[in-house]
């Protein structure tokens, strides 16, 4: 992607957010924020019986990059296990979003993924604890 293509890719996600809205029966629901940019993103997720993500939604407000990134993240985690989501790389995400464009705003670009990873980690730890009990 050249710079203009990367801009158009992000603008498309910003203007046509994928998987936006609440999620019924979510097992993960966690909000994360960047006070400096007034970004507040809530990530909702649900896993199927095999432990693979089968539903994801997001809600919130924020700058163009944080919203575009949240939309994109919901597209790339479908079917992944909690562990796979936790192991996702922020660097890879920044590369896919267009490093040249988002490198000045990495906290915005990674807010959604970081929030999802944290929420998924808490969900997994809770599930493990329940299992050992």
């Amino acid at each position, binding site marked *: 992607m050249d710079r203009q293509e990367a801009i158009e890719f992000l603008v498309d996600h910003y203007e046509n957010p994928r998987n936006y809205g609440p999620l019924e029966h979510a097992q993960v629901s966690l909000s994360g924020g960047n*006070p*400096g940019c007034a970004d507040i993103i809530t990530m909702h997720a649900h896993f199927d019986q095999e432990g693979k993500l089968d539903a994801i939604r997001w809600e919130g407000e924020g700058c163009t990059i944080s919203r575009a990134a949240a939309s994109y993240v919901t597209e790339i985690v479908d079917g992944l296990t909690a562990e796979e989501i936790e192991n996702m790389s922020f660097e890879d995400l920044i590369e896919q979003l267009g490093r040249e464009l988002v490198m000045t705003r990495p906290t915005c670009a990674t807010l959604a993924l970081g929030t999802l990873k944290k929420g998924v980690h808490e969900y997994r730890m809770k599930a493990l604890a329940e299992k050992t009990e």
Partner: protein
Amino acid sequence: MSGTETNHAGYVHPEVLVETSWVADHLDVPAIRLIEADEDVLLYEVGHLPGAVKLDWHVDVQDPVTRDFISQKGFEQLMSRWGIDNDTLIVLYGDKNNWYACYSFWLFRMYGHTNMKIMNGGRQKWEAEGRPFVKDVPQYTPTSYKAQPMDESIRAYRDDVAAGLRDPNRRLIDVRSPQEYTGELIHMVNYPQEGAQRGGHIPTAKNIPWATAANPDGTFKSAEELRQIYYGKDVTPDKDVVTYCRIGERSAHTWFALTYLLGYPRVRNYDGSWTEWGNLVRAPIEKP
């Protein structure tokens, strides 16, 4: 063509500002070129003022190799590409209180374009007033623009800054956030904390964050309010003033306010700023 609505604010040079209503009434005037300069790189594509071209700071005005701006010839080519001739009235606007619009104003002024204005309040005010944004990218017939050699009387270099450290008539203004000034951070909150080896500020610098010159709606504060801010820190028109921030863009906003709105005769913007000073070996730094 002047935005006379701003006269009441008591500015020394009110002619450098136009109001959003004035711009709305002059969108179809061929001798006017609107230029949008944003910090947020996506905003122009999300929507811009009808007829406006995009100034992308990362690609349009930076030398790709040396840390410097484009050359005189490069500036001429840029103006030509946007269909701007030497008589065109350029109206700059952007996001975040016109932060990058003022930075552009400063650069364009160095290359000799004087017929320029800032749209007071920028994108924020235009949007708040429910005025239209479009996605069409305009194409203009190239011109034969002639730029002047760079006027560096409004630009400060590190040697100028260092030479003035003991000058009682010199005032340094660090326009960054208090956390950057004290060295707690080396960039704004939520931005990558990189670009300088050390935190702190240049000795003698006074901390007057750039956005204190703006109202909540993005417009500039009145002359009286601005005087209270700068006089209150002993930054008065009789002094040689140098503004700086991290790379010189926030400080261009303060340069603009002091030079045009308050009429200070000697204000320079140090665009090397903290990303230069905070990396210089043995450069003196104050840090509480």
